[in-house]
């Protein structure tokens, strides 16, 4: 039986029609936020509490990267046993002038990463349970 593909963070990203992070844009001052679940506009000159969904750039430059060589504690769930190290990337989006974190797909070797390189958003498995394959956004080098 195939598992249900389930977004691990509904509303934060989509894979339709293509992998995209969903920010929130203040309806009053147009300030952008990610994650999108904002109750208040955090621009101190703006008292708005109304936001609209705002897709973020799908590409950016690698601001920095690192690894988890040991399994993080719960509530992290490893996708496989034994634990395999993986990389985490921080990517700078030019238009949005912000840096967004994401895991790097397991297939990408650490040696393939370099600060400043072009990265693109992909959607990949976070972990699976008996019924669901949970999906998450990740940052992958542009090939």
């Amino acid at each position, binding site marked *: 039986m195939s598992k249900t593909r389930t977004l691990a963070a509904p509303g934060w990203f989509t894979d339709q029609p293509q992998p995209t992070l969903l920010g929130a844009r203040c309806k009053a*001052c147009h300030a952008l936020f990610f*994650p999108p679940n904002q109750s208040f506009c955090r621009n101190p000159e703006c008292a708005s509490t109304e936001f609209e969904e705002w897709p973020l750039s799908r590409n950016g430059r690698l601001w920095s990267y690192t690894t988890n060589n040991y399994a993080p504690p719960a509530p*992290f769930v490893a996708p496989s046993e034994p634990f395999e190290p993986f990389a985490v990337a921080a990517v700078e989006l030019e238009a949005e002038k*912000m*840096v*967004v974190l994401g895991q790097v797909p397991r297939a990408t070797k650490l040696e393939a990463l370099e600060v400043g390189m072009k990265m693109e958003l992909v959607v990949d498995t976070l972990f699976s349970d008996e019924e669901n394959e949970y999906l998450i956004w990740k940052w992958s080098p542009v090939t």
Partner: protein
Amino acid sequence: MADEVAILGVGMHPWGKWGRNFVEYGVAAARAAMRDAGVEWRDVQFVAGGETIRNGYPGFVAGAAIASALGFNGAEVGSSYGACASGTQAINLARAQILAGFCDVALVVGADTTPKGFFAPTGGGDRQQDPDWLRFRLLGATNPVYFGLYARRRMALFGDTEQDFAMVKVKNSQCGAQNPNARYPKAFSLDEVLSSPMVSDPLRLLQICATSDGGAALLLTSLDYARRHTSNPVVIAGASTRTPRYPNTHLEMPDFASDSASKVAAPDPGFRDSIAQRAYEQAGLGPGDMDLAEVYDLSSALELDWVEAIGLAKPGEAAGLLRAGDTGIGGRIPVNPSGGLGAFGEAIPAQAIAQVCELVWQIRGQAAGRQVEGARVGVTANLGLFGHGSSVVVRAH
């Protein structure tokens, strides 16, 4: 320039993994500070506690819990929380009570008992609304992940090397080995640091600070009161508990993203650079006046970020200072002569207070084995989750 209060006494409970109640460490540190000051508990009029959120109700009311264990004496009390900045919040509370004329003698105490391993989010359950829960769940973004990102960024931007980061640890561990309150009394070699297991590339196990049990305390008084006890008090000349200005373009732990600067321009100076600035302003001093500093080395590489943020070096030049030996004992501006968090580990509500203890011992010339000669004025810097800046300027009066 702001008015000053005296630090008449300082004290610690040694840091380690003792597994006892945090109140024990707090009481021991408080008694040590009172002995150091020559002040009796009955004369303490205000108790400011740094809270711990991992020790049940007594941790939330740390000021009262420690006052109760010392034996309630009718003092006024406050408990402050700002993550790793909790200690500075407690200092700021007590300092202002004295300067406002509400009391002459105040005790500041922070103590913690910590769990083993990585810090994980407090409490259980499925907490889809809690960013501190989600960063573990969705990204596996432990604290060392953030430290690794900052370190790799320095390598790319400034040409810092893994050896530079390891040298920070070597330098600080030499100091820690001379500090009876430090948890790790061992001077590590460069080889030992660089051969320890990689945790979050480029940072290895010996470059990432542990979680500790421990306690630290200050006995603060008005200058008039202090002059009746000593001819040369050490004073707090400035303290900062500043928050960021939006947008904060630095990627802060535990966030998923930095603020966006697309609609509102990033402030200048940025958050980290603004923290000590506030303490300097109150003190009427600048980075060039400092003889030493205690900064927030959650990782070895992070010390270099802070050396720049508090103005001891221009951006990108902290590793140069390190290589020249400027930030070691005997150097131009020693940094973390206590051994830093690398030698102590984190005991959250105590650490900002412990930084001030070290400055006092140094300024008094009581830091045997790690003494910064001629130390007259120093600065601390620190940061708590969710925008809690922390910095204190301490000087000989």
